[in-house]
């Protein structure tokens, strides 16, 4: 049988005869005990639900995160990378196979849950319930799997911490996917069963379910792309850009009607794309490894005119930052940042957050400063803790310092730390311009020191991969 070899190997390891017998016995005993104690099918249903979450979500995210980490620590990862399996075969073989026993037990829980409805329920409702639960577990596992690959690229030797962090990210995805973070969305009213998305009134449950499965698919694609990189395939950043565009459209759908209602008098459609691009720039910056060798390859490919190779080496933050510049450029003459989100509107109330061309120039400059800072720290001798250090520096720059300045009555000083309009173009743009310039100078110096002794870029012939 031509079953995916990676899936089959995982099935051999996960679905041993002993486990296949033990799982229904143990779960059956638990549910029988609940029934015998309470004589209430509702309690059995609750127990099955909790068992499903514990097994499929909590344990499942851990198993998904471990599926590659175990290979690395067990010394089998190189052998797998030497195989002839493609990235997709390897990805789904690991994700599905590595969690196969989890699903075996979780499906038992799901069947018990759906077999014990509290009220006579339509089959379609039961199906919908099952689809929601399956999606909940899948998004967690897919995100944990992708995150473990991301951490593997950043710190190949580490195992426990990356697995834990990947599991946490998976669990956060579960919470987000099931609407746990809807309170962050200003247009998602918890007291309403409908939400407005691109002018359509859609049931919140329907939109949540659809979003859950769409983002699960994106998480699976993310895992596949990271696996491609791990297996030495060249990948251009089209999928990343596609995700950025999708996310922009998705988020803009929630805001378009709201902004139209606000009647700001200027085009405002670029606000959501700008916000998404900003978030993705920082996500790409911190998620990816920032190995100076890889950046040197990238620089060499650019100088050598090897566009295909350069695209394959493109840091993820770079296209996202290009989208920031694009959105900020399109937003010139548009509305201000404070208008679209009440959280920003209440922040620093005495500072003008209304329409400002200056702010849209200051924002990319601040981001450029931040990117240079992160790279500066990563290109240093002790790059392992560089991201954590950069995160702390940025947190101090963006939160305590402007707060202190504001509390001291220095109303114009926050523009030194934040992209806010404090009354004049000069005071808004010049500080981030100077900061970005200073960081770029420092970064250039560090780059020179770090690449000293290596072949000058351009003398060595970069691998022609195109």
């Amino acid at each position, binding site marked *: 049988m031509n079953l995916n070899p*990676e899936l089959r190997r995982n099935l051999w390891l996960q679905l041993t005869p002993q486990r296949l017998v033990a799982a229904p016995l143990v779960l059956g005993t638990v549910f029988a005990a609940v029934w015998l104690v309470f004589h209430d099918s509702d309690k059995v249903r609750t127990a099955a639900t909790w068992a499903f979450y514990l097994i499929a979500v909590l344990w499942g995210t851990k198993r998904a995160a471990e599926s590659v980490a175990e290979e690395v620590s067990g*010394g089998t990862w*190189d*052998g797998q990378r030497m195989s*002839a399996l493609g990235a997709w075969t390897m990805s789904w073989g690991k994700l599905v196979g590595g969690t196969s026993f989890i699903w075996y037990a979780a499906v038992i829980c799901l069947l018990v849950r759906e077999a014990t409805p509290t009220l006579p329920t339509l089959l379609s409702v039961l199906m919908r319930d099952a689809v929601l639960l399956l999606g909940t577990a899948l998004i967690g596992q897919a995100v944990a799997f992708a995150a473990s690959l991301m951490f593997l690229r950043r710190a190949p030797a580490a195992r426990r911490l990356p697995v834990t962090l990947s599991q946490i990210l998976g669990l956060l995805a579960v919470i987000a996917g099931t609407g746990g973070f809807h309170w962050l969305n200003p247009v998602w009213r918890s007291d309403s069963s409908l939400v407005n998305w691109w002018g359509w009134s859609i049931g919140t449950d329907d939109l949540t379910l659809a979003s859950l499965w769409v983002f699960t698919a994106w998480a699976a694609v993310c895992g596949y792309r990271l696996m491609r990189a791990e297996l*030495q395939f060249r990948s251009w950043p089209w999928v990343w850009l596609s995700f950025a565009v999708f996310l922009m459209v998705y988020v803009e759908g929630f805001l378009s009607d709201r902004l139209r209602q606000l009647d700001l008098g200027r085009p405002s459609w670029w606000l959501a794309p700008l916000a998404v691009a900003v978030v993705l720039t920082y996500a790409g910056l911190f998620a990816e490894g920032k190995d100076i060798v890889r950046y040197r390859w990238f620089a060499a490919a650019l100088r050598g005119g090897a566009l295909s190779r350069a695209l394959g080496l493109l840091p993820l933050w770079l296209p996202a930052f290009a989208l920031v510049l694009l959105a900020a450029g399109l937003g010139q003459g548009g509305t201000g940042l404070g208008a679209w989100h009440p959280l920003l509107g209440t922040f620093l109330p005495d500072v003008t957050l209304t329409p400002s061309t200056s702010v849209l120039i200051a924002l990319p400059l601040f981001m450029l400063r931040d990117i240079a800072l992160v790279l500066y720290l990563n290109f240093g001798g002790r790059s392992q803790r560089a991201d954590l250090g950069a995160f702390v520096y940025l947190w101090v720059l963006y939160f305590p310092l402007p707060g202190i300045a504001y509390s001291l009555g220095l109303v114009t000083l926050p523009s030194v730390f934040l992209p806010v309009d404090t009354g004049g173009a000069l005071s808004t743009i010049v500080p981030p311009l100077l900061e970005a310039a200073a960081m770029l100078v420092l970064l250039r110096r560090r780059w020179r020191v770090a690449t000293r002794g290596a072949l000058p870029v351009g003398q060595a012939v970069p*691998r022609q991969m195109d």
Partner: protein
Amino acid sequence: MGSVTPGMIQVEGLVFDYPGLRALDDVSFAVEPATITALAGPNGAGKSTLLRCMAALATPFAGRVVVDGLDVHEEPRASHRRMGFLADFYGLYDDLSVRRCLEYKAAAQGVAAALRRQLAERAAKRMNIDERMEQKAGTLSRGLRQRLAIAQAIVHEPRVLLLDEPASGLDPEARAALAGVLRALRQDGMTIIVSSHILAELQDYSTHMLIVDGGRIVEHRALDAEMPADARQRVVVVLAATDPRLGEILSRQEGLTEIDSDGMRAGFVMAADADRRQAVLRALMDAGLSVAEFGLERQSLQDAYLARIGRKGEGA
């Protein structure tokens, strides 16, 4: 490096960097088919990095590796079907039987389903573990695990086999068995590169030597190759009885250097020329010395390695 003649493996201008370190610096060489190349060098010389680049497990900054006509970094999956690789720190799936380990590996290397069992049994037989097919990998001894690991690397019958320190941790008997297996694989047409610190054992089966130091190839030659015209060789003379004239007679001969004599035994370096050697022997015989042995000193792989690395060290 100079131009590279085509072979089963061609490495051209390979450059690989770690942060702050150039691990491979313009490395070029070619390996002929059906040979066993001993890859030697001090710790940190770049041996493992070189093997990983050749196996397409690491992408070089510059240069390329062509194995059996395929650029391994352009077509990593296709080239992996033609290559076997055993890393210095390898692992096995302890809960799988030997048979399942081998059948999985065969499947992962793209072997057709109908052939997997046959090839798994063949690889196990080659490594002499065919009687343990149903035993779990986790229950095997270290030597048997090593054999299983190599069996996994060759189960798809690759044309090229890369082994990084395959004999480390093996007892002498297991090492001898490994040497036998490698010789047999070579006879079957496989091209093998073996990295090891144990040069004495490499000598038993290697046909070529590749010495890496400081990220560069410092020597690459066939171990049984004919000497070039300008080459010099070390000759050893042993007398049946001590004669103090031995050193003096040798020093009078033209073209002899590095003469070392204790009256009973002497060594010297001279041009690799049979006629010149005969002339030196005649001079010793004519002088009435009781020559018991006269011949080329057989240089072991270890001697060659130490000579090359030592020379480099002295020059540094």
